């Protein structure tokens, strides 16, 4: 009898314990941040180096330095790009996330709309030395206009044309192409020597978006109306997408095989000397790690339709970059702000941007002679004079998915040998717009 009673009591206790732990679990455990102690911070870094391991090697010594200065231990997790947005969304939904995190700067407005990130009002900016420390182009990609930024610029990058000196010389080309027509003409000479011309990542939705955004600018068009509504299939955007995909289907400068690239294979192709040119953002560190020395390639501005890069229709790059944000649910707000201040300090900006071959978005750090190499000068000039921020609208992330997918499908058409016409581009873009949430 006693054992039966014990079993019954045990069963009831177990059930209650299960129910209680399930209900209470959300607030006491889980997530990455151990908020019980203000002596720790959890930091999600994006993958900036050639691999996650490289990032850990770059960041850990700096985090140790921060711990020495402030007594706050930072727990680092480097999150791969394929997971980062989902991880942030999950953290937003559950309220269990890191204290500080890196975000792609194009996501700023979308994540801002969720309310998960700490708004950088005047007071918060003051804690990191003021808004004026950062260059304007970088601040333009930190959230919707007219709202307090959702994040602070950390690394700035821009697209450039990386070209293989030997291949171009062998083909009798004296200088890298400055316009698309020149690039197509040079392409014929390069192909005649059996080399591939221009690398691209046809199945990478973000890469597709970055390029068609710039082409749209060069056609004087935009994917969003001035009041932020999707306008994907206007004549200018259709011409832009047709020109970009046409580099494969009509001009034959992008190899057909690149239509299925999505894992940075085009960078490896370039580093191995298979491809003559590559449009990439801040690729130097990546190329070095793949064994391509700095003297084997040159860096030039991305081509334009005619003339030279500049504002308006002469734009030749998006404002690429990484922002650092503070998760609103953090229990260590002061520590988080101190950490952001540390990461955006002149010293750290120089160290980190050197390691990642990016440009510091902090004015004073940008002036450092360390960023005066020819490649850096091209990137810095591009950022300062001929780059534009992707639309800072709440639907930006959906835009990347729907239009990025449309361009991927068009590349698949081109790879299969089907013609990419204005009509087929318009149909694909119209379909993409119809997938957008109705507002």
């Amino acid at each position: 009898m006693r054992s039966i009673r014990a079993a019954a009591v045990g069963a009831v206790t177990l059930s209650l314990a299960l129910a209680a732990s399930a209900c209470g679990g959300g607030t006491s455990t889980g997530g990455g941040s151990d908020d019980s102690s203000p002596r720790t911070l959890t930091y999600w870094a994006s993958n900036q180096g050639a691999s996650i391991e490289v990032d850990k090697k770059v960041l850990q010594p700096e985090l140790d330095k921060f711990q020495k200065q402030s007594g706050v231990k930072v727990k680092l997790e480097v999150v791969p790009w394929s997971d980062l947005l989902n991880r942030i969304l999950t953290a937003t939904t559950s309220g269990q996330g890191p204290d500080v995190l890196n975000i792609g700067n194009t996501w700023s407005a979308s994540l801002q709309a969720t309310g998960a990130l700490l708004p950088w009002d005047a007071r918060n900016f003051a804690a990191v030395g003021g808004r004026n420390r950062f260059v304007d182009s970088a601040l333009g990609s930190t959230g919707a206009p007219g709202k307090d930024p959702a994040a602070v610029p950390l690394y700035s990058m821009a697209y450039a044309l990386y070209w293989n000196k030997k291949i171009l010389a062998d083909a009798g080309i004296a200088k890298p192409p400055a316009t698309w027509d020149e690039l197509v003409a040079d392409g014929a000479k390069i192909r005649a020597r059996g080399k591939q011309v221009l690398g691209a990542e046809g199945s990478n939705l973000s890469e597709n978006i970055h390029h068609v955004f710039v082409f749209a600018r060069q056609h004087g068009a935009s994917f969003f109306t001035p009041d932020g509504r999707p306008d994907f299939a206007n004549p200018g955007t259709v011409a832009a997408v047709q020109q970009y995909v046409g580099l494969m289907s009509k001009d034959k400068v992008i190899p057909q095989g690149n239509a299925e690239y999505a894992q940075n294979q085009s960078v490896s192709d370039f580093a191995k000397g298979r491809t003559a040119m590559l449009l990439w953002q801040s690729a130097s560190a990546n190329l070095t790690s793949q064994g391509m020395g700095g003297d084997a390639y040159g860096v030039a501005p991305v081509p334009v339709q005619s003339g030279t890069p500049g504002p308006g229709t002469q734009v030749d790059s998006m404002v690429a970059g990484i922002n650092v944000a503070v998760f609103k649910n953090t229990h260590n707000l002061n520590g988080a702000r101190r950490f952001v201040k540390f990461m955006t300090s002149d010293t750290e900006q120089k160290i980190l941007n050197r390691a990642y071959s990016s440009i510091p978005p902090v004015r004073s750090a940008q002036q450092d002679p360390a960023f005066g190499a020819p490649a850096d000068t091209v990137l810095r000039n591009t950022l300062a004079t001929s780059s534009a921020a992707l639309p800072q609208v709440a639907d930006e992330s959906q835009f990347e998915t729907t239009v990025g997918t449309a361009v991927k499908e068009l590349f698949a058409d081109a790879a299969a040998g089907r013609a990419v016409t204005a009509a087929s581009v318009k149909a694909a873009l119209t379909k993409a717009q119809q997938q957008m949430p109705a507002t």
Partner: protein
Amino acid sequence: MSTGTPMTTTVPTGPGTGAPPAGAHTPGAARGPRRPGRIRRGALPYLLLLPALVLELLVHLVPMAIGVVMSFKQLTQLYIRDWGTAPWSGLGNYRMSVDFDAPVGQALLHSFLVTVVFTLLSVALCWLIGTAAAICMQDSFRGRGLLRALFLVPYALPVYAAVITWVFMFQHDNGLVNHVLHDQLHLTGRPTFWLIGDNSFVALLTVSVWKGWPFAFLIVMAGLQNIPGELYEAAALDGAGLWQQIRRITLPSLRPVNQVLVLVLFLWTFNDFNTPYVLFGRAAPEAADLISVHIYQASFVTWNFGAGSAMSVLLLLFLLVVTGGHLLLTSRGRRSADV
């Protein structure tokens, strides 16, 4: 409530309260020492089931219920931080999902049809290959154990590792498949794209069958062990050939096994997320746009979790109908067979 069975006496100590209310039964308190014993004896089985029931609730039913609730909400990026504030949308998400004249509904229908065709083909091929292999392995021969183990390898491999290997093999420029088909055998005029465009359906089906048939093989092999050898001997004496033996003895005897096998394969294949996601990433080509990835994209990538939940609920209902129909049909068949 009170029906006079011993069970009703469990009510005061039931799961809702956990302990007998102190003051409620003071009149009976005098007889206390005897009654609790009776209570516990009658209630014990239920109490012992309770932890399992609570776990089942927590692990399966509560998330499902939350999913259903979400499907009636307008749960977009503006509200995911605090679900409670998301406005109710009534049947709005469902209406959008099944409005086949509008783009979202059209895309869902297309994805559904692709999934149905894919699932039917995959299950049929898995079953066919699995059964054929199991029958071939029925008689013992040298190396049978080794072959059996080898056949089970795809089933034992971690999905991600296996499928990512297929991705490499299907690559256009350097993939093994094109190397064999194009470079070696010259079967195709030019290298084929397997991971984008229309051929992606073939690639997906290949990987799915490669991954799924060992399970059919395993189950059918187990089923074959239960068929008495005398049946075959008697049939052989009567002059039945191999094909007749398979048709008249093996397949009918395997019927109960096959009924379960086909249902399980169908549900697994229809819901498979890993294979298409690893093969194609978050934006699957139209020809291979399976419904699980489609719903994932509708919710995670466009950040509209309400619409994604509504589509999931519709999928759940469809699978319930299919499963129910299947069970109804097969159980009717069994009953008539028993008679």
